[in-house]
């Protein structure tokens, strides 16, 4: 019992720390990638190649003056960034970061908890994530903040629907909503290919919705600087602002992990069982493979951000309700049809 608790505690702390570090360096990566795509150098003063830049930014955020507006609702003003940060860190619990590691004859799974409603849990956390933005935006008592908050909530609700529907097709195919089982089904050999091969449309819809849910360009309407000053975090300063920005990067990391797990085989990599490696080595390589996939998707997020301009609000709603939702319903129907035909004719 005690060893179980210690093992889980260590796992939780490690995953928490890893998500924070990845989010920290995503800010650095974002600035570097933006710079390279615009033929610039990017941050290069703090440490070699500027790799200490996130630390400098963090120190700056902490040292800045803390301003809580006089007319704001103070309790809720503080609650907003707390919720944003909390929900951002919560999803990492159900993601299988790797297979089990065997130490001293004891198997230790690299997933904090394999609850059998993994995908639903993810959605539940996602749907409360919007409260951080809404409460913060409303409590600031500022027009721009309120507009940003309202935009955020309507955008998130709209795209959650399409996201859920795109996942349903995947769940119909795999027959489970445990992320662990979904990953294991994509293990190599016997034509067990990554789910993206079977669900290309679903993947595309999921990807677009993930962009919208994490408030990334081209769907960054809740915080568009050019229209709303800063959106829901206009009134925030110091580390509270830092939490909001940080939560966005953690969300990006987690959603990349979810995409990699659901559609790109998670910690599986090609020929993993054919090379004659030991179990532990396969697990470690699997973790490396998963992180390679995650970093690719983080890069994709940034790549798209520095390529595509922002949508107009009506275009955003049209895309969500009139294109993505019908498309995902069609995808569900098609998946159901093929599943039925497969059962009937055994192919």
């Amino acid at each position: 019992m005690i060893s179980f608790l210690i093992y889980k505690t260590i796992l939780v702390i490690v995953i928490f720390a890893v998500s924070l570090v990845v989010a920290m360096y995503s800010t650095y990566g974002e600035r570097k990638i933006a710079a390279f795509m615009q033929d610039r150098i990017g941050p290069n003063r703090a440490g070699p190649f500027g790799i200490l830049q996130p630390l400098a930014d963090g120190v700056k955020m902490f040292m800045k003056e803390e301003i809580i507006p006089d007319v704001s609702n103070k309790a809720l003003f503080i609650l907003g960034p707390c919720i944003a940060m909390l929900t951002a860190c919560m999803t990492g619990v159900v993601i299988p970061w790797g297979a089990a590691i065997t130490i001293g004859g004891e198997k230790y799974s690299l997933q904090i908890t394999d609850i059998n409603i993994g995908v639903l849990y993810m959605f539940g956390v996602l749907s409360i994530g919007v409260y951080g933005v809404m409460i913060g935006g409303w409590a600031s008592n500022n027009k721009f903040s309120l507009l940003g908050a309202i935009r955020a909530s309507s955008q998130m609700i709209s795209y959650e629907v399409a996201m859920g529907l795109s996942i349903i097709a995947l769940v119909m195919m795999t027959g489970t909503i445990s992320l662990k089982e979904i990953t294991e089904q994509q293990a190599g050999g016997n034509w067990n290919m990554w789910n993206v091969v079977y669900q290309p449309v679903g993947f595309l819809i999921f990807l677009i919705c993930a962009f919208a849910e994490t408030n990334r360009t081209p769907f960054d309407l809740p915080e568009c600087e050019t229209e709303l000053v800063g959106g829901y975090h206009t009134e925030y300063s110091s580390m509270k602002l830092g939490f909001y920005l940080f939560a966005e990067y953690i969300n990006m990391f987690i959603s990349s992990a979810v995409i990699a797990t659901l559609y790109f085989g998670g910690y599986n990599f090609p020929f993993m069982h054919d090379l004659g490696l030991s179990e532990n080595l396969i697990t470690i390589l699997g973790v490396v493979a998963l992180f390679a996939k995650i970093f690719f998707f983080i890069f994709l997020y940034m790549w798209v951000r520095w390529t595509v301009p922002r949508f107009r609000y009506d275009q955003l709603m049209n895309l969500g309700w009139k294109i993505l939702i019908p498309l995902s319903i069609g995808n569900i129907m098609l998946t159901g049809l093929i599943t039925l035909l497969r059962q009937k004719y055994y192919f």
Partner: protein
Amino acid sequence: MQLTNRSKVVSKKEMTFAEKLYFPAILGGMGITLKHFFKKPVTVSYPEVKRDIAGVFRGQHTLKRDEKGAERCTACGLCAVACPAEAITMTAAERKKGEESLYREEKYAAVYEINMLRCIFCGLCEEACPKEAIFLTDRIVPSNFERDGFIYGKDKLVEGMNENRVDVTKRQTEEVNEFKKDKHYAHNK
């Protein structure tokens, strides 16, 4: 008049289905950004690397000394008159006995101030000077936290002695020398 052949006629026709998918266009755009990703940055890391500037670059002023090290300026005030931004002020004083090695002529500038916030670095002072005393150099005026810090007195303007002399030969091209011979072109219009 058509200047280039790059102009395109804008048409408002309905988009085809392939265009309405947007994905080809988005992927094309991403291709372009990826191409730039591998290009060499055009950044010049300023304090370490300095861009080449023209020989006749007009930067911070200097008050020259003559060959013996005496100040050339005689506080005639022509530079102040020529200055369109009214950045130059000066107070004249008479040279005392024994100061011959310090000042070249009997009258000299006891105070000579240029307000670098007003100065537009046009170089008219240099043109107006009959004594070849004031020159603009290729040095950049550094930033400052105070407004007062931008008012440069003689301590900052007069060039040093011996090895601390400021080289202005770049500014004295042949055309300039030719022009300087005929002073009435400069400010008697």
